[in-house]
């Protein structure tokens, strides 16, 4: 057997090792399209099953963590894995390995076939998709892929230096950068490839007296879009303003959710858009007594919810785990439920077009976005007689899947609004409320912001149910 090329280190790895020796860190080591294609073809050639699907994931992750005004852990990880699904009649099984040598691939192929032969038949098994056409998504940015450890340490210093000089602050933050490539190929001739970069920065500033806390976050494909200094300045100001919160009685309040709070809460709607659970009568999109809410007005007429891998604020892979192309989907348009999510099996059974997902929702590739409005947070505050400004939410858990009631808490900056201005910092609340109820009581909508939980605007809504107080800062 000839030596497999991936058993040797590529030249670029050797060059990077030399760079590392001199304290200069390298650019991302991610498999190319040709390398992914080669791995997939090798695995497919080794396959003796009726059909075979091969997925390759390659990633280079770097991170810096700091806390208590001090560097904490930091790391670099390079990994690549191949996942092989073998189909024997209606039986199938998947084996994942990160040993990409010739022998590693052959072993994984053989093992997935052996497991598939043992598995019971799956009546929902469908033939593999043939070749598909995909939109090219420009998600790769060298500004992120070529960062050095020095770049990331300097970015951390933007907050650390200010807080150490100040004496009244304690900062903690995390910078995470990722470059990755993903490919899928199968024995029916399908091939899909996508690569992208991502930079995520989150910063928490607490006041040294333990009574104030603030947070901000940025999530971009392009590192150069993150303004580290501006985030430090704003978060520090907000932390000082949040000191010594007072208790305000729980109850129903007009709320202004900043975009992260919107994403934390409203992202839950995504999970309830699955057609199958709705058809089976066990989700919030099912009508009591039978049928689904498709075509009905379920939210305020200003609310539209979409997924779109090509959206400039999303930039995700344009295919799901089956290799099915993902396109723009409009789930809710002007408050009306227009579409539910169908994987290939359920779509075939119901005689509709699949939206992707491979059994789950959206395949992770389409993103989730609520369309924005033009109201600024300042304008929302000015128009509020009495209300609560919420920075973000924490520890959300479903209380009831049928009503989508969630519980959770406010965190890192909760403020009382009185007579059109922020009057004071208040203690955090626990809430029990449903995004489906909140989006029927909307007063104003702001421009959209990308967060780590989807693309959402700031929202002002009435009668949000805060149910108890928390002493946590």
């Amino acid at each position, binding site marked *: 057997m000839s030596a497999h090329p991936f058993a040797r280190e590529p030249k670029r790895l050797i060059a990077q090792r030399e760079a590392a020796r001199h304290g200069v860190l390298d650019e991302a080591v991610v498999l190319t399209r040709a390398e992914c294609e080669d791995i997939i073809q090798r695995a497919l050639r080794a396959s003796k099953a009726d059909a075979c699907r091969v997925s390759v994931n390659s990633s280079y992750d770097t991170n810096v963590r700091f806390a208590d005004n001090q560097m*904490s852990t930091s*790391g670099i990880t*390079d990994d690549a894995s191949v996942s092989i699904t073998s189909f024997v009649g209606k039986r199938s099984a998947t084996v994942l390995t990160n040993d990409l040598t010739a022998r590693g691939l052959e072993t994984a192929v053989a*093992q997935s076939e052996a497991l*598939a032969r043992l598995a019971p038949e799956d009546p929902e098994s469908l033939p593999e998709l043939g070749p598909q056409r995909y939109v090219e998504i420009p998600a790769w940015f060298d500004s992120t892929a070529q960062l050095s450890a020095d770049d990331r340490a300097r970015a951390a210093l933007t907050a650390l230096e200010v807080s150490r000089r100040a004496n009244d602050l304690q900062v903690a933050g995390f910078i995470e950068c990722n470059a990755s490539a993903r490919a899928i190929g199968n024995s029916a001739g399908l091939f899909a490839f996508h690569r992208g970069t991502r930079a995520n920065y989150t910063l*928490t500033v607490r006041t040294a007296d333990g009574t104030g806390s603030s947070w901000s976050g940025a999530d971009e494909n392009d590192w150069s879009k993150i303004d580290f200094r501006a985030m430090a300045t704003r978060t520090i100001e907000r932390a000082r303003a949040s000191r010594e919160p007072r208790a305000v009685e729980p109850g129903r309040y007009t709320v202004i959710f900043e975009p992260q709070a919107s994403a934390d809460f409203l992202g839950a709607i995504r999970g309830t858009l699955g057609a199958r659970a709705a058809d089976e009568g066990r989700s919030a999109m099912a009508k009591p007594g*039978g049928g689904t809410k498709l075509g009905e007005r379920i939210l305020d007429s200003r609310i539209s919810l979409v997924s779109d891998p090509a959206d400039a604020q999303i930039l995700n892979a344009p295919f799901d785990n089956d290799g099915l192309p993902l396109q723009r989907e409009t789930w809710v348009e002007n408050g009306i439920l227009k579409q539910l999510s169908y994987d290939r099996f359920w779509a075939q059974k119901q005689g509709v077009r699949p939206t992707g997902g491979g059994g789950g929702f959206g395949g992770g590739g389409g993103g989730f976005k609520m369309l924005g409005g033009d109201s600024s947070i300042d304008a929302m505050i000015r128009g509020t007689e009495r209300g609560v400004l919420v920075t973000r939410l924490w520890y959300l858990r479903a209380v009831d899947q049928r009503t989508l009631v969630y519980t959770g808490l406010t965190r890192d900056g909760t403020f009382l609004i009185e007579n059109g201005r922020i009057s004071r910092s208040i203690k955090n609340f626990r809430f029990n409320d449903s995004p489906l109820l909140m989006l029927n009581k909307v007063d104003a909508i702001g421009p959209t912001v990308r967060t780590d939980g989807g693309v959402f605007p700031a929202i002002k809504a009435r009668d949000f149910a805060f149910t108890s107080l928390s002493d946590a800062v």
Partner: protein
Amino acid sequence: MTSRREFLASTGLAAGALALASRRLEAAESGSPILTATTEPDPQVRVLLMEALNAAKLAGASWADVRVQRQRRQNLGTREQQVTNVLDTDTIGCGVRVLVDGTWGFSATRALTTDGVARAARQAVALARANRVARDREVRLAASPAHPNATWKSSYTVDPWSIPVEEKVQLLLQANAAAQRVRNVRFVNSSLQFVKEERSYANSEGSVISQDVVRSWVTMSITAISDDRRQVATRGPEVVQPAGRGWEYVLEADIVNNATVWAEQAREKLTARSVEVGRWDLILHPSQLFLTIHESIGHPTELDRAMGYEANYAGTSFIAPPDTVLGKLKLGPEHLTIRGDRSQPGALATIGYDDDGVQPDEFDIIKNGIFWDYQTTREQAEWLRPWYEKNNMPVRSHGCAYAQSWSDVSFQRMPNVSIVPDQRVDRSWNDLIAATDKGIAMIGRASYSIDQQRYNAQFGAQICYEVRGGKIVGQLKDVAYVMRTPEFWNSIDLIGGKSSYELGGTFNDGKGQPGQANAVSHGCPPCRFKDINVINTGVTL
């Protein structure tokens, strides 16, 4: 700083490593495991461990450790009479952690060649060096004895990978069928999850440790729907607690016979009465209470949280700063003791040696109702030196360092944190019910949420029984209790005895950035809490 010669000598194993050329570590032709961890590390793995340590030292590390780890997972999923998922994952790689001038660096690679691991070591050093500019205080590690040639195996008897997938899936489908025979049961999902870790560890102080860890979990989620399709009730999915054991544990769970019981409970829940808001005495079963221990005692007594190291993600702690609470904060009556350990057989956090190379000890977190100690790693034990010296306790780590895989840096994770049963009276679940006039007996974890300092929590349960006059009178729904942690633990009045002690746990406790999952168990007997605030969570859309 130690010289290179001392550094290598302390490992006692360097000679052969340096002489070896780069070569790929591959599975044997037979496909047998690369690592055989119940004996000392495979010679090829040992070569990689030493190569990484040597490279770290040559690049300027004052201290280093290295983990080569193979992690296998198997997930099998079903719904009703279909298989939905057969997935086997098998990954292996190497993570190197270094200290350079008191600053951490970590790098991990799947390239298991001598060149590959050496490159990771140099990268870790370069990273630490780059971050030195932003560090304020030097990292210091509490002393810990070296463990050369140490081995450990978790308490499983049947390796789950020795059982054919067919047999495993048939067991799930039989249990599903049993549940489906109960009237109104419309949907059943079940799954088996197995983890096998072969962990090899070495550090620059001479420890070389290999460990073999198995974890297993069987879940079932049974959904009943009323005849008019207006009521939906679910029991599960955590009907059986996960364990640090093997296939024998799955068989003992007897899911085929128990499925009928769980299905009947789901059906009965369709006609449950909506709870009356107010103060109730709560009798919490171990399958419910373990999660409350985890969230309200386990997390706030992590020392990194108390010191602000998790402020940007998981949060901080109300049990802080340490000097104001150690030996002072009252978190329960005198008969309440809560203990940390990594030694209970079958518990998920049980291990021989942690990812600092430390042999964990047992330690009281709450001693006779008073907060007494935090969970620590070697780095963190030094932070408590004044407290330990004042109380004539050794300045040592409790062995709580853990990384979820070779590709993740180790940091402080939760050990098993468990309530010590009442030593005076051996009360059972039924004894607690019989002793209660107006209460709710809660079984199984459901919705759970707690704030970032672990004060305000809200917990539900899968099954809530109304107790009147010492007897169960029916099921309640829409039940959640809301608590403030110190008052809640001070309200405990009855603690069950050792014969009713059970372990509950999870594979997926999240913490850290990047996020890592830790598997952890909590043992407790059923306990009763007086006058707890209960809310009604039901709404209509």
